[in-house]
């Protein structure tokens, strides 16, 4: 009888003209909000199923600076839908990773200020594409050291060759960076010089055999004069600390990154003093899973060079030692246009180690016009446009705790902001794995020589937030 208003406010505001039925590329793409999605019709022409049809690389200013097609060419106008979504999202990270357009689906990842947009036409697990795109970025990073627009443009031919090898007809072919490096040599300054003189090329002149072996991640015939294996145990603390300083949630996420430069086909085993600490692990494919299951020993034939051996998780059930505390006093007074701001950072459970590289960032409310602060050490910047406060503290001296004090100028006339800023903390502690994880020993089998072994521990802040 009567319309009961029950739609949410959000939707109402966003409602854009909704087109039903036929939609051709000329018309505006439908909004893709997360809660409500236009049901897409099945009349789309299906020209052969492929996984990834095309890839566009788009920079921050919206230029498509590289395109690659693995099948028929898809016009770059398809990216217009992406640009619209980009406009709608206030920040780059809010662009939805999956956008549906009348004829295609656009899956994108945003890294290093570049959007990697994959165009697909048919059903495919979205994570498949997203994971692949991330792998592409990782490969570029591995090849060029950094993955930036300038780097990609400088090395456009190598990039193209790499992409050609990574996908065949839209399906991943060679994604192991070891194999790729055998197929296409990464550019180095030396090689570039040599190439210009001798006229030789970056393409490997030997056909790679890695793809054919049972250890596809390792090249054959590796030779080093110094045989060395370094392992970095890096732990990150993710924590949310509440106003009163008590821990709401804290978890440790760890990784073991390895740099292994060993001759031949070494077979390594790495054992821990306390493997039970590891609650959830994921391995590089080289790790023998059964051995871990039965003995809690990492047994593997390592890839050559840098790789991530293991990532692990120390569960929230275990008590996590929080190495720092933040004392804060942030006050907006109702009457005056001045607010008080004061934070102090101090060490807590650090096992006798120094906390370094401390950096405090905080997003201040819109009402804050400016801040006049004095740090007891380090430097601070407040950006009045983005309202971001950054304080680079450096090392914490337990005798003289670093603090940042001062006042905030608030917009006159408006009432005080009702939200308090969150404080994000970064820090590093060398030679400490906060979970207490310890590597017991590293043994090598299968080769005769004695390798040089090194293990380093480090604890870092992950997503470490203090609510105020």
């Amino acid at each position, binding site marked *: 009888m009567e319309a009961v208003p029950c739609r949410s406010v959000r939707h109402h505001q966003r409602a854009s003209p909704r087109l039903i039925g036929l939609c051709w590329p000329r018309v505006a793409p439908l909004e893709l909000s997360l809660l409500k999605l236009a049901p897409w019709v099945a009349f789309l022409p299906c*020209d052969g199923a492929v996984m990834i049809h095309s890839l566009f690389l788009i920079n921050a200013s919206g230029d498509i600076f*590289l395109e690659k097609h693995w099948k028929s060419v898809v016009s770059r106008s398809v990216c217009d839908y992406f640009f619209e979504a980009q406009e709608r999202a206030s920040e780059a990270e809010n662009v939805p990773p999956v956008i549906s357009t009348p004829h295609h689906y656009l899956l994108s990842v945003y890294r290093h200020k570049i959007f990697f947009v994959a165009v697909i036409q048919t059903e495919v697990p979205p994570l*498949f594409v997203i994971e692949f795109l991330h792998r592409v970025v990782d490969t570029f990073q591995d090849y060029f050291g950094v993955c930036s627009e300038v780097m990609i443009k400088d090395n456009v031919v190598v990039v193209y060759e790499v992409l050609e090898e990574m996908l065949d007809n839209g399906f991943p072919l060679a994604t192991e960076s070891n194999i790729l490096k055998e197929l296409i040599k990464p550019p180095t300054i030396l090689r570039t010089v040599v190439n210009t003189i001798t*006229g030789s090329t970056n393409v490997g002149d030997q056909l790679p055999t890695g793809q*054919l072996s049972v250890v596809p991640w390792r090249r054959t015939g590796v030779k080093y004069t110094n045989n060395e294996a370094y392992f970095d145990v890096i732990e990150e603390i993710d924590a949310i600390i509440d106003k009163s300083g008590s821990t709401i949630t804290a978890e440790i996420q760890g990784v073991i990154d390895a740099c292994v430069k060993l001759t031949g086909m070494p077979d390594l085993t790495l054992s821990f003093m306390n493997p039970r600490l590891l609650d959830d692990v994921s391995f590089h494919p080289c790790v023998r899973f059964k051995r871990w299951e039965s003995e809690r020993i990492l047994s593997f034939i390592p890839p050559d060079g840098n790789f991530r051996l293991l990532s692990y998780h120390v569960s929230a059930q275990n008590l996590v030692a929080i190495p720092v505390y933040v004392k804060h006093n942030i006050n907006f007074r109702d009457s005056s246009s001045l607010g008080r701001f004061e934070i102090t950072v101090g060490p807590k459970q650090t096992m006798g180690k120094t906390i370094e590289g401390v950096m405090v960032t905080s997003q201040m409310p819109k009402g804050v016009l400016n801040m006049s602060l004095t740090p007891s050490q380090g430097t601070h910047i407040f950006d009045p446009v983005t309202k971001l406060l950054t304080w680079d503290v450096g090392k914490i001296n337990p005798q003289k705790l670093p603090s940042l004090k001062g006042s905030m100028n608030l917009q006159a006339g408006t009432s005080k902001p009702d939200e308090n800023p969150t404080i994000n903390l970064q820090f590093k502690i060398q030679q400490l794995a906060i979970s207490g994880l310890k590597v017991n020993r590293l043994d090598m089998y299968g080769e005769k020589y004695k390798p040089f072994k090194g293990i380093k521990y480090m604890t870092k802040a992950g997503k470490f937030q203090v609510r105020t």
Partner: protein
Amino acid sequence: MAASPAYGEEKGGSSSLGEPEYGHDPASGGIFASDYKRHDDLKEMLDSNKDSLKLEAMKRIVAMIARGKNASDLFPAVVKNVACKNIEVKKLVYVYLVRYAEEQQDLALLSISTFQRGLKDPNQLIRASALRVLSSIRVPIIVPIMMLAIKEAASDMSPYVRKTAAHAIPKLYSLDSDQKDQLIEVIEKLLADKTTLVAGSVVMAFEEVCPERIDLIHKNYRKLCNLLIDVEEWGQVVIINMLTRYARTQFLSPNQNESLLEESAEKAFYGSEEEDTKDAKAEAASLAKRKPYVMDPDHRLLLRNTKPLLQSRNAAVVMAVAQLYFHLAPKAEVGVIAKALVRLLRSHSEVQYVVLQNVATMSIKRRGMFEPYLKSFYIRSTDPTQIKILKLEVLTNLANETNISTILREFQTYIRSMDKDFVAATIQAIGRCATNIGKVRDTCLNGLVQLLSNRDELVVAESVVVIKKLLQMQPAQHSEIIKHMAKLTDNIQVPMARASILWLIGEYCEHVPKIAPDVLRKMAKSFTNEEDIVKLQVINLAAKLYLTNSKQSKLLTQYVLNLAKYDQNYDIRDRARFIRQLIVPTEKSGALNKYAKKLFLAQKPAPILESSFKDRDHFQLGSLSHLLNAKAVGYQELPDWPDEAPDPSVRNVEVPEWTKCTSREKRKEKVEKPFYSDSEGESGPTESADSEPESDSEESGSSSSSGTSSSSSEEEEEEEEEEEEEGSGEQSEDKEGEEEEEKRKKRKEKGGLRKVSPRITPPLPQPVPSSNIISTSLVTDLEGLTLTDTSLAPALLSPAFGAVRTYELLHRMAGEGLSVEYCFSRRPFPGDPHMVAVQIQISNNTDAEVKSLRVSEPKLLAGMRIQEFPEIGMGTVVEGRWDTVAALCFQRACTHTRHFYVSIQPPVGELMAPVFMSENEFRKEQGKLTGMSEITEKLTLPEKCRSDHAIVQQVTSAANVGRVPCGADNEYRFAAKTVTSGSLVLITLEWREGAAAQLTVNSEKMVIGTMLVKDIIQALAQ
């Protein structure tokens, strides 16, 4: 930097679309001003006979393609270079060709012959790359050529080429779908392939060409399950998704007992309706009649073999396994995926986005699963908004009576966030918690009312909407709140909120009799300036007030209706007209007038606030369709479980006798075929334990080898130790212990990741000579005996087994997981007494199946013969044989993928067989073999070798000789004859005082004699 310096134009970083295509290349830009000339230049470079110029040109062309510029007019010049020797030029030409062939079909045909030639290349990588490019050229005219090439490649020796063939299938299919039937044949063939390399690609082809032909999977199902862990990660995703669908059609629901009960419970939760419970009862009754559920072993196999993949570093694999478990596993087992999914939340935000969407759907169905990880979904101020909202959704789904207070406390923090969209979503979430959990309804409502005084209008508006929904549940108790909200109409401008307040006041005007008319008065005043949605509610409010309180509101109502009558929006005009007819009694007004009050003020059911993720699980999780909540093109519906299980025997595989198969397959096979079960009866208990699905809680893949029934994990350690001291330890393990050779056949399994290899009877017919059964001890006993055999042909004796040495033929590192050892069994070779038996033991240290082991192209020195063993599967014990004195023998062993060059160097002592003769005979023969045939050497015996026993042992281990009895204490005699030629070899060792000794060897084969002396001395010196 890879691009040569001339390529510097790209360095500027300017890539604006409008920039002219050419002409700013610092190296050549000045010279070639126009497009035309520039292309001429490129053509010239391509035509030159210098590779470096060609390369330079190709690089520039590829860069043009990368930027999306048109380079198609260079086609003829480029295509000429397709046969270029320079590999990088060639690669770039391929890139170009694949890009433009479609546009220049005729010219593209020029390149075809090059690829056809490439298809015949002896190098597998070249064959593969030729097929890859050929199939990527989308020119319909070459369809028959492609078809032929694919068919050929599908039966290529190299699995890498077969993989490429699998990749080519969907390409051809998209070019010409008429080829489907032929392609299905190829797919069928490739599905039967047993290499991990091919598996992922062919399933991908299957999914794209003929996903409906589920029957093709039957025979390969078990193989795919077993291979899964070794397939490359992308292939794993495709296979897991396909197997999910397969399992849904072939097995029964593991939750059929619980599902109904569970459903009814869920329904009751969302507002119980009596019908449901009745239904459930009826169904439960019918359920009781059904036979108890037993999981198909194949179903169990799938679950078990996918579980380790939850540990994969690839998020797509983890998600694929998670959805498989969600859709296929018994309810009690689904929980294992939660931890892995939570782990993915640490990944990139795009991964989080997809994972959270799936978690949101799962958390509705199986809330308990994620409850332990509640805190992992807490929101950080730095999360992107879309992630925040998804986490909120999950938190809301997880809320229950026990954790609601924690969650609400958390929500309170969120409400003070700076991200207003997120705050609005939080308010809605609070509303949902309040409707679902009665206990906290009042608390939530109070909290929301407090938000009404928030400064942010958006927050207030959202609160109003949510409060309205909550109040509908129990309006009577909350007239205060309604009053409070009525006051808000002055301030709130958000139309939806205004409309909500008006509706609320109208609906419950009886609770606020004094305020309601006043609100109407105010609204009448501002009516023309309101939004449509508000206007409609003003009319509603007016109508309701007219019906309940006509005295105060009659005039106001008429005023409002008059305004509405001339409104621009015709919905509003219609509404006004309709309401006027209904509520204002006139002569003409019909029977409905009497019921107006009932019509307007009927009890209205409270809205149910539910998740937008409810019922999304009818899409396969992890799919694009699920993410979009709409069917994507090419989406394969996830079928419902069948009521009756289809015949499980379709998955049985006929295994020919020598076929290589994994133990599991083999085991299954044995059950069905009594042929196997009598020979390996002990596998019985293992089988029965395994076939009971529920009891089978062992970690995935830990199947026990069919030979020994103990679990493999224990065995591993033992076996690894035994590797070094190859020997008696194994004997105890071998329960049967009847055949000596049996113990050497035992599989050696090392390393963590590998499947259990089967024990397969050696391929050669092995009529075990009775002498083989003589135990070691018996042989030693015999050594002491004097055989009074006077015949001239001395009896050949079975050798002493005490110290059989094994030699390494192929190290497992060099062999990429395959290790080969050999030893000389010192037994007469059954087929030909003039050959030396070499026992080769091949162990597979990988988890991949190794097939087609064979000796290819043995390089033999003159006079050597080799009797090859037939192709075998992994880990079979093989005896090969040599028949001559040669010291060196090269052999090229190969598996189906790889060739390994190995060489067997038999010590000379192994090329003979012991002979027994009496002391006299020995003397007589020795007398014949003097002079050139006698070799004498002095040596010193080390400390430990100064006993009879030690000397005999060392000599017999160095050479396959038999001891000849001897009168003198300090003299030892041994005799043997070479296997091939039958010439005698006599050894005499005289032990003088102390450590000195003298060794004499008499043999007409002088080479053998010299070598033997050397070997024996070395053995004794050790």
